[in-house]
C-alpha cells in the first residue's frame, strides 16, 4: 500500500482548500436532495430512499467535522469517505431499481459523490485524486445496467477535478515552502544584522584599538597590530550590510569593486548603487582585479592603491591608481610590442569587449593610473 499522505508542512495555504470542500459537501447535498425529491416517484422502493438520505446527511456532517483536524486526515478517514460514497451509489440498485436506472433516472448521489475525490486530491495530490475518481466512478457505472453518457461524463468530470485540485494543492505546497524559506531568510537576516551590531560594538573596537596603539611599535608588537588591522578590515567587510538595491538583471559595480578594499586598497564610490548589466559588472570588476594584481606585483611593497568608481550620465569610469614606482616611459609600449604585457592585454581585452576604452598613464616615481571607461547601454 502506498504510504499515507504526507501531512502538509503547515495548514496555512491548504486550510482554505479543506474549507472549500466542506462548502461543496453541503451545496452538493442540497442539490442531490432536490433531485431525489423530484425523482422519488420513479423509484422502485421510494421508502428505501429514506435511510440512504439519512446516511448522506449524516456523513456530510460527520466528514466535515472529521476533516477539520489535520491529524485526522489519514487513510482511515479517506477510505471511509470513498466507502460511504460507494455504498450510497450502489444502494441505487435496490432503491431506484435497474428498470428506472435503465430509463435514465439519475442516481441519488449526483455531484455529492465528488466530495471524496476532492478530499483525496487535496490530501495527496493528483495521483490520489485520480485514484478516488476512478473508484467512485466505477461504483457509479456499476449500478447502471448499461453504460450511459451521464455516468461517463460524471466520471470524466471527477477525473478533471481531481487533476485540477491536485495541481492546485501541489502549487499551494510549493508556495508554502517558498514562504517558509522567505520567513527563515528574513529571520537569518535579522540575526545577521544583530551579530553585525554586536561585532561592531565589541570585537571591531578592540581590534581597531590594538591596531592603533601598536602601529608605532617595532618588531613583533607592530606585526601583531598590523595583523589585527587586517582582521578588522576583513571582519568589517564580512558584516557590511547588504548592498543598495539594483534593478533586476543588473549588478551593483560599486559593491563588486568595494569588495577589493583592504589595508592597502582604498575604494571610492558613490553612495548609491552603480547598476550595470550583470555581465558588464562582472567583467569590469575582473579588469579591476587584474589591475590590482598588477599594482601588487609592480608598484613596490609600500605602494597604496586607490580605486575610484564614477557613475556618469553615459558611462561608468573606474580608475585604479597606485602611488608606487611607476613604469618608465616607453616600457609599456615596448612590452606590449613584444606581446608579453599580459596585464594590459587582459584589461584592454575585457574592456574592449564591452565597447569601452582603457587609458594607462605612468611615470617613474609617480605611480601608474589605469582608467577604464565603459558606456552604459540602456536596458
Amino acid at each position, binding site marked *: 500500500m502506498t504510504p499515507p499522505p504526507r501531512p502538509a508542512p503547515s495548514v496555512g495555504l491548504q486550510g482554505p482548500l479543506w474549507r472549500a470542500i466542506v462548502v461543496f459537501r453541503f451545496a452538493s447535498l442540497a442539490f442531490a436532495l432536490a433531485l431525489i425529491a423530484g425523482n422519488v416517484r420513479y423509484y422502485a422502493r421510494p421508502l428505501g430512499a429514506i435511510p440512504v438520505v439519512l446516511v448522506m446527511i449524516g456523513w456530510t456532517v460527520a466528514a466535515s467535522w472529521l476533516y477539520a483536524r489535520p491529524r485526522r486526515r489519514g487513510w482511515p478517514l479517506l477510505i471511509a469517505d470513498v466507502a460511504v460514497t460507494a455504498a450510497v451509489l450502489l444502494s441505487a440498485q435496490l432503491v431506484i431499481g435497474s428498470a428506472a436506472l435503465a430509463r435514465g433516472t439519475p442516481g441519488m448521489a449526483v455531484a455529492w459523490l465528488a466530495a471524496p475525490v476532492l478530499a483525496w486530491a487535496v490530501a495527496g495530490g493528483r495521483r490520489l485524486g485520480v485514484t478516488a475518481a476512478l473508484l467512485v466512478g466505477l461504483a457509479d457505472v456499476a449500478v447502471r445496467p448499461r453504460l450511459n453518457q451521464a455516468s461517463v461524463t460524471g466520471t470524466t468530470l471527477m477525473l478533471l477535478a481531481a487533476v485540477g485540485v491536485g495541481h492546485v494543492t501541489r502549487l499551494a505546497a510549493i508556495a508554502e515552502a517558498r514562504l517558509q524559506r522567505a520567513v527563515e531568510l528574513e529571520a537569518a537576516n535579522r540575526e545577521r544584522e544583530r551579530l553585525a551590531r554586536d561585532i561592531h560594538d565589541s570585537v571591531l573596537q578592540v581590534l581597531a584599538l590594538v591596531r592603533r596603539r601598536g*602601529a608605532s611599535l617595532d618588531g613583533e608588537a607592530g606585526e601583531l597590530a598590523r595583523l589585527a588591522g587586517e582582521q578588522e578590515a576583513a571582519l568589517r567587510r564580512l558584516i557590511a550590510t547588504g548592498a543598495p538595491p539594483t534593478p533586476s538583471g543588473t549588478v551593483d559595480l560599486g559593491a563588486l569593486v568595494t569588495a577589493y578594499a583592504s*589595508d592597502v586598497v582604498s575604494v571610492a*564610490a558613490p553612495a548609491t548603487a552603480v547598476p550595470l548589466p550583470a555581465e558588464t559588472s562582472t567583467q569590469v570588476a575582473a579588469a579591476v582585479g587584474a589591475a590590482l594584481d598588477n599594482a601588487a606585483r609592480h608598484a613596490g611593497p609600500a605602494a597604496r592603491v586607490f580605486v575610484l568608481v564614477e557613475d556618469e550620465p553615459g558611462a561608468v569610469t573606474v580608475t585604479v591608481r597606485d602611488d608606487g614606482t611607476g613604469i618608465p616611459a616607453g616600457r609599456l609600449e615596448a612590452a606590449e610590442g613584444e606581446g608579453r604585457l599580459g596585464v594590459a592585454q587582459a584589461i584592454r581585452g575585457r574592456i574592449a569587449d564591452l565597447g569601452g576604452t582603457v587609458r594607462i598613464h605612468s611615470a617613474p616615481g609617480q605611480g601608474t*593610473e589605469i582608467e577604464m571607461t565603459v558606456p552604459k547601454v540602456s536596458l
Partner: protein
Amino acid sequence: MTERIRVMVVDDHPMWRSGVARDLAEAGYDVVATTGEGRQAVRIAGATRPDVVVLDLQLPDISGVEVIRGLRAALPDVRVLMLSASGEQQSVLDAVKAGAAGYLLKSAAPDEFLAAVAGTAAGEAVFTPGLAGLVLGEYRRLAATPEPADRAAPALTDRETEVLRLVAKGLSYKQIAERLTLSHRTVQNHVQNTLGKLQLHNRVELTRYAIEQGLDQL
C-alpha cells in the same frame, strides 16, 4: 602663548575613547569632554564649548546626522571631524551634508589622525579618497535627478570636479597643487567649496520642506 584647541571626543567605546583622548592630550590639545552618547554630547557642547568635536558616526542613541545638527545648533562655529569604519557610505554622506567639516577612517594611523584634527581645527576640509568619491557621486546623482526649474541642483565647476577626482584617486593636496600648478590654499578652497555647496543645498531643502509642511508656523 596661544590658547589651546578645545576638543570633545564622542565615541561609544570607552577604550577607544580614552586612547584617542590620551593621544590628543599628549599632542597638546585640551580635551574638554568625552562621552559615549550623542544626546549627552549635544547637551554638554554648550557648556564645554569645544572647537573641534571628534565624532564616531555610529552611536547607540541617535544618528550621526542628529548629533551634528544638535552640535551646530548649540555651537554654530564648531567643527566636526567624523570618524567611521568603511562600508557606511550613506551615513557618511548624510553627515557631511548635515555639516560635518571632515571625515577620517577609524583605521587611520595615529599621526594621520592628529594631522586631521589639526587640519579641522585650522578650518580645512579633511577628506579621505572615499569621501571624495561619495561627494562626486552625490553631485552626479543630484544632476541626474530632475528638479523643478526654480530649485537648481548645486553643481561643481570643472576645476572642482578635477580636484575632487584627484582627491578620490588618493593624491594629497600638495600633490594636487603641484599637478594643477595651483597653490595649496586654492586646492583647499576648491575642496571646501564642494562641501559648502552640498551643505547649503541641504539646508535650503530642509527649510523648504519645513515651510511646505507648515513647520515654520509652529
